[in-house]
């Protein structure tokens, strides 16, 4: 049976990992390659690296990080952040990334999804959606790292991304992100049940039960988290043992 996936997310700035000071006994907690190797050995199913640098120089450094990670680990990884055009995708896939994650650029120019999936196949194209549930209940998509409302609904956009060839949807609920009170399972369930491609839950992980709930109640195919892993609050081996006991199929 297909396993539910656990995906740690690492933010990279100027070639080093942001956050993650408490993570196990790394000599250099800021070294993304060492961190990637440690997560892979702990049983992470995939990794996501987000480039949060804005500069041109930072981009070059990030590409170099991607090359080193690709040589070091033997599990799939996705890269995102600052992908604005097809040339960025060419560069990152050539560096050894398995998938790329598009966010604002895809909302602004949806045809980018068609272009990338025609060239490389659906499996490389993750569409990341940051959305907030407004007071009237409407799930609104945001761009620019969640700063600017875009005027498109979550479900409508996810469906369009799928129809254009996206291989997966990575949905971050801005209402839940950073709150550590659980994932947006109601919206996730509606999203997952209405799409034919996998949905990755993001935003809200605080306890092991939150992971169980997003798989069991939110119908998510995978769950992504950052700080609970980086600060050592939840260990991946313990999380997977717990999920197995809760009858969630995970890779052990």
């Amino acid at each position, binding site marked *: *049976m297909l*396993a539910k996936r656990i995906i740690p997310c690492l933010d990279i700035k100027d070639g080093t990992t942001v956050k993650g000071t408490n993570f196990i006994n790394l000599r250099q907690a800021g070294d993304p390659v060492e961190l990637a190797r440690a997560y892979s050995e702990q049983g992470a199913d995939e990794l996501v690296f987000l480039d949060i640098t804005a500069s041109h120089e930072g981009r070059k450094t990030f590409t170099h990080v991607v090359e080193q990670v690709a040589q070091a680990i*033997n599990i799939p990884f996705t890269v995102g952040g600052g992908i604005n055009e097809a040339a960025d995708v060419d560069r990152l*896939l050539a560096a050894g990334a398995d998938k790329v994650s598009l966010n604002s650029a895809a909302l602004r120019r949806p045809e980018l999804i068609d272009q990338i999936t025609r060239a490389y196949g659906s499996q490389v194209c993750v569409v990341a959606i940051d959305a907030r549930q407004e007071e009237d209940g409407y799930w609104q998509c945001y761009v620019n790292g969640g700063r600017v409302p875009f005027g498109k609904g979550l479900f409508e956009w996810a469906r369009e991304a799928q129809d254009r060839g996206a291989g997966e949807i990575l949905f971050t609920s801005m209402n839940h992100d950073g709150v550590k009170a659980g994932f947006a399972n109601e919206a996730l369930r509606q999203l997952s049940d209405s799409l034919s*491609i996998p949905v990755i839950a993001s935003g809200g992980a605080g306890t092991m039960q939150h992971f169980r709930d997003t798989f069991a109640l939110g119908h998510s195919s995978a769950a992504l988290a950052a700080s609970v892993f980086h600060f050592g609050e939840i260990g991946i081996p313990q999380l997977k043992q717990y999920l197995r006991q809760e009858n969630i199929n995970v890779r052990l």
Partner: protein
Amino acid sequence: MSIAIVKYNAGNIRSVTNALGRLGVEATLTDDPELLQRADKVLFPGQGEAGHAMAYLREHGLDSVIRSLRQPLLGICIGQQLLCRHSEEGDTDCLGIFSEDVVRFRPERQEDKVPHMGWNSLTHVKSPLMAGISEGEFVYFVHSFYVPVGENTIATTDYIQPFSAALHRDNFYATQFHPEKSGDAGHRILKNFLEL
């Protein structure tokens, strides 16, 4: 030991060369028939669409080169599908080394997503390629088409229904999953292949 990777129009082979690098082996990416025939081992990886891939192989005469090979060859993902008789993807006649046909996943329930993407387990494991791999071992898959269980199946995975996770006939081996992305289990399978 000389390792050749078949050069054609099906995707990124960087992850395969990286995996071989972790095993201390360097490979040559080539579409030169002589280099392919002389190699000790041949890898035939790929992602992409069967129709375009087969058209390219035929145009470049690589179809008959691959059929003529006598050393161990390992097809990966679309590589496995192209070694079969026929693929439903683009109604494509393939290389015909394996008698099996390739068909598309047909979801039966809401939770059956296509592509089949992620870690799934191997059962009914046999053949030297799978030495040291236990029943239930997880490996990484990304695909929308599959090979049903047939006479050449050496490992089975269950997704919507059981299908061939790996095939073997004579010197031809193939995996639907990506050993280069399948953690320690995948590392072991690639090592087994290099030691055949």
